[in-house]
C-alpha cells in the first residue's frame, strides 16, 4: 500500500509545480469568507449593516458636523416645531457649548469651527422645551448610547466567554457547580440589584472620581455588563462541551499545552461565531436597558445626553394641550431604526454563521 502511494506521489519537479498551481487556482473558503458571502446575499441584513456603518460614521464625526450645540439652552415658552431643510438650510447662530469633552473631541470641535465657522444647520427636527436642537441631541446622544452598549457588551463578553469556556472545558463537578451558580444568578431579579448598585455608586461618586479616577459611567458600563453575561456563559459552555472532545484539543493536550492555553487559544476562537451573534443581540438589549435606567433617573445624567434621556424627555411632554410630536417621534425613530438594524443584522449573522445551514443555500 505504501509502495503504491510513494509511486503515485513520486513526481518530478514540473509535475509538482503543475499540481501546486492547480491547487492555487482553487481557493478554499474559510468559515468567515463563507459567512461574509451569505451575509451579503441576505439583502435585509446587508442594508442593516450599511445603515449601521453610515450611522456609526455620522455619530463618530458628530463634533465635526455643522450641528447646533446639543446643550446650548435658549429658554423659550415651548418647543419649536421642525424647520424643513428646504425652508431654511442653516444659520449663523452656533454657540460652542458642550459638556466636558475629551481632548480629541475638543480638537474636533475646533476643526468644525475652522471649517464651518459659526454656520449651523437649522432645527430640522425642532427643539425641545429648552430650545436645544433635537437632531443634534439625537446624534450626540447616539455617541453615548453606542458607547454604553459597546462597553457593557464587551464587559459581558469577557466575563461570559471566560466563565463558559472554563466551565465547559473542565466539565464534571466544576462545570456542575459553575452552572448551578449561573442558575442561581438567573433567578435573582437583577434589575433590583442594579438599582441598588447604582444608587450606591451615586452616593460615593465624588470619592470614586477623586481617589480611583473612575467616573460614574464606567461603573455603569461594568454593572450592566456584569449582568448580561449569563446567557453568553451558557451558550459558550454548551459549545465548548462538545468541542473539547474533538481531535484538535486532544492533539494540543498531547503536545503538552496547558489547560489555560487550550481554553483561550484553541477553544475560544472556535466559539467566536456564536459569540458574535449573541453580541449583536446583546447590544440592543443593553441600549434598551440604558433607556430604562435613564427613565428611572439612574442612567446617564444631564447635561450629557443619551437616547434613553431623549426618549424620557419625549414621553414627559405628552400632554393634552399640545402635542409636541417631534419630541417623541424623531428620537423614537432613531432608536427604533438602530435597534431594528441591529436585530436584523444579528438574525442575518446567525443564519450566515450557523453551521447547520452551511453548504445549503
Amino acid at each position, binding site marked *: 500500500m505504501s509502495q503504491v502511494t510513494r509511486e503515485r506521489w513520486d513526481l518530478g519537479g514540473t509535475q509538482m509545480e503543475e499540481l501546486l498551481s492547480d491547487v492555487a487556482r482553487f481557493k478554499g473558503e474559510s468559515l468567515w469568507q463563507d459567512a461574509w458571502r451569505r451575509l451579503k446575499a441576505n439583502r435585509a441584513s446587508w442594508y442593516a449593516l450599511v445603515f449601521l456603518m453610515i450611522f456609526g460614521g455620522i455619530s463618530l464625526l458628530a463634533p465635526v458636523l455643522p450641528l447646533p450645540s446639543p446643550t446650548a439652552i435658549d429658554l423659550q415658552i415651548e418647543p419649536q416645531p421642525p424647520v424643513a431643510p428646504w425652508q431654511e438650510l442653516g444659520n449663523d447662530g452656533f454657540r460652542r457649548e458642550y459638556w466636558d469633552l475629551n481632548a480629541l473631541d475638543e480638537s474636533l470641535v475646533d476643526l468644525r469651527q475652522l471649517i464651518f465657522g459659526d454656520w449651523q444647520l437649522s432645527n430640522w427636527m425642532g427643539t425641545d422645551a429648552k430650545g436645544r436642537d433635537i437632531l443634534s441631541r439625537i446624534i450626540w446622544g447616539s455617541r453615548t448610547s453606542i458607547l454604553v452598549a459597546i462597553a457593557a457588551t464587551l464587559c459581558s463578553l469577557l466575563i461570559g466567554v471566560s466563565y463558559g469556556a472554563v466551565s465547559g472545558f473542565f466539565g464534571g463537578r466544576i462545570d456542575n457547580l459553575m452552572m*448551578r451558580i449561573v*442558575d*442561581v444568578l*438567573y*433567578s*435573582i*431579579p437583577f*434589575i*433590583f*440589584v442594579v*438599582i*441598588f*448598585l447604582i*444608587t*450606591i455608586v451615586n*452616593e*460615593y461618586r465624588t470619592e470614586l472620581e477623586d481617589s480611583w479616577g473612575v467616573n460614574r459611567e464606567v461603573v455603569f458600563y461594568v454593572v450592566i455588563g456584569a449582568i448580561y453575561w449569563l446567557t453568553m456563559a451558557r451558550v459558550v459552555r454548551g459549545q465548548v462541551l462538545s468541542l473539547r472532545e474533538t481531535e484538535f484539543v486532544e492533539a494540543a493536550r498531547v503536545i503538552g499545552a496547558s489547560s489555560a492555553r487550550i481554553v483561550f487559544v484553541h477553544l475560544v476562537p472556535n466559539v467566536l461565531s456564536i459569540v458574535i451573534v449573541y453580541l449583536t443581540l446583546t447590544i*440592543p438589549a443593553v441600549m*434598551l436597558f440604558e*433607556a*430604562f435606567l435613564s*427613565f*428611572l433617573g*439612574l442612567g446617564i445624567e444631564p447635561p450629557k445626553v443619551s437616547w*434613553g434621556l431623549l*426618549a*424620557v424627555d*419625549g*414621553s414627559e411632554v*405628552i400632554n*393634552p394641550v399640545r*402635542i409636541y*410630536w417631534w419630541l*417623541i417621534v424623531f*428620537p*423614537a425613530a432613531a*432608536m*427604533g431604526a438602530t*435597534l*431594528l438594524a*441591529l*436585530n*436584523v443584522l444579528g438574525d442575518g449573522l446567525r443564519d450566515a454563521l450557523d453551521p447547520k445551514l452551511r453548504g445549503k443555500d
Partner: protein
Amino acid sequence: MIRFLLRRLLWFGLTLLCVVSVSFFLMRSVRGGPFDNERTLNPAIERNMQARYHLDWPQWKQFLQYIGPLNLAEDGAELVGGDGTDPFGGILTGDFGPSFKYRDFTVNDIIGQSLPISVSLGSIALLWALVLGLTAGIASALYRNSKTDVALRLAATTGIALPNFVIAGFLVILFVFLMPLLPVAGYGTPKHLILPGFALGAPFAAYIARLSRTGMLEVLSQDHIRTAHAKGLPSRLVLLRHAIKGGLLPVVSYLGPATAGILTGSLVIERIFAIPGTGSHFVNSALNRDYTLSMGVTILYTVLVYGLNTLVDLAYTFLDPRIKLEES
C-alpha cells in the same frame, strides 16, 4: 417529580439567602439612613428612633433579627411592628417588619395593597402578549414568506426594538389625545388598565411571535405532521392537534423570563400611568433607604420569579414527555 421539587426548593432557599444577605448588607453599607431629611434631627431623637428599629446594633445582629423570630435584645425589648405594638417576627414568619418611611404601615400592608394592582396589570399584559404573539407567530409560520409574514415579522422586530415607555407615549397620543377613548392615567376602572397593559405587553408579544414562528416552522417540517396530512386529516386539525403542542414549547420556556420582564417593565409603566402598584415602591424605597420595604419588595420579586420559573419547568414536562425533570 417530588425529588425535582425538593431539589428546586433547596436551590430556592439558597437563592433567597443570597438575595436577602446581599441586599441587606449592600443597603446598610451605603451612607445615609431612613431618617435622613432636609431638616437635621435632634441627635437624641435620632438615637431614639434608631434604637426603636434596632439600627444601632451591629449589622450581623440586625441581620439575624431580620431573618428569624429571635429576640436578641439584651433588655428583652422587642422590635416594634408596624403599628408600634406588635413585635416584629422576622421574615421567616412572613413578617417583613415596619416600613421606615410610611410610619403607620407595615411592609406587609403596603405590599398587600399594591400587589393586587400590579398583578392585575401584569396578567393583562401577559395575556395580551400571549394572545397577540401566538396569533401573529402561528399566522406567520403558516403563511411563510408571504407579505403577511414579512409585515408581521417587521412589526415584531420593531416591537422588540422600542422601549416600552416610547410605545406607551405613542399609545397615549393615539388613544387619549387624538381619539379620546381611554383615560390618560390613574387606576380604578378596567378601562384604566387597557393602555398600560398593552404598552407593557407589546415587547413580549413581539418576542412570543418570533419564538412561536420559529417553533411552528420547525414542527411543521417534521415527519409526524406529514403523516397526519397524508392520512387525510384536515389542515385545521393537524395544526390544532399535532403542530401547536410541539411548536409552542419555546414559548412556554420563555414565559418564565417574560414574567420577570413584565415585572421589571411595570416599574416604568406604573410610573407613566400613575398606577399605585408595587413597582413604584421599588425604586423609591431604595432611594429613600427604606430598608425594610426595599427588602420586602426584592424578596417578593425573587419569590415570584423563582416560583414561576419552576412552574414553567413543570409545564414543560407535561407538554413534551421527552424532557426529563432530572437536570443533569
